[in-house]
């Protein structure tokens, strides 16, 4: 198993770095160019959420293996204010910031597995996986 890649997210240019690292890793594992783009776009959305709502955080990328299938894991983590209503945050078009409100629900559609954990005053963790078909 490949080692983890961690990208500190402190400003918007780190969003670009995170998605580039993600694309590189997806390419190495053998994802198609379309899947690389879907993956990079999902990373961009969750990384942007860190910058917009928490200010600082990190994106951890790593290759994963489960049985015979290979995949890629992304963990986006921050110690920001947390999300009050997770169900609402996952609804299309809902946004407390100045955005389109597609970030989290959109990222879920781009990935295979998606999990959102958040606690007010503690932080938010988004865990996403994409499997190689």
């Amino acid at each position, binding site marked *: 198993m490949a080692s983890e890649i961690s990208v500190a997210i402190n400003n*918007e*240019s780190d*969003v*670009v770095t995170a*998605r*580039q690292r993600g*694309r590189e890793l997806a390419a190495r594992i053998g994802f198609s*160019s*379309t899947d*690389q*783009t*879907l993956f*990079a*776009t999902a990373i*961009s*959305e969750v990384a*942007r959420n860190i910058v917009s709502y928490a200010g600082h955080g990190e994106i951890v990328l790593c290759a994963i293996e489960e049985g015979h299938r290979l995949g890629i894991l992304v963990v986006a983590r921050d110690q920001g204010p947390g999300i009050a209503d997770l169900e609402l945050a996952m609804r*299309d078009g809902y946004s407390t910031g100045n*955005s*389109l409100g*597609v*970030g989290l*629900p*959109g*990222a879920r*559609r*781009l990935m295979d597995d998606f999990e959102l954990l958040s606690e007010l005053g503690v932080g938010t963790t988004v865990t996403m996986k994409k499997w190689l078909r």
Partner: protein
Amino acid sequence: MTVPILKQGDTLIASIQAALSDRDLMDLRDDLAGRVGRLRSKGVIIDVTALDVLDSFATRTIRGIAYTAKLRGADTVVVGIQPDVAFAMVQLGLTLDGIATSLDLEEGMALLEARKAARGV
């Protein structure tokens, strides 16, 4: 990294070179809004051929550029959205409603010319 803006007749062409940060995109919006007035441009082409990701922020900013240019009297055409990028945008639920798009720069120019002719400019 600033986006170079070329002037060709009364059309402005902004070719986005690589992965742009949010700040670069906002600078481009402000820069284009100013130039449309100064140069009395009637058309704006935003070439995104080199962009490998168009996420919600980038899409919203491009939309903002097009609507701003429209209010300043210029039509905008977004050209060169790559097939993978288009697919990801659809999955994300992003649209460019009311904004003209073309396959490439050449078709974008032709579209602007046709619109100008129709408006009798």
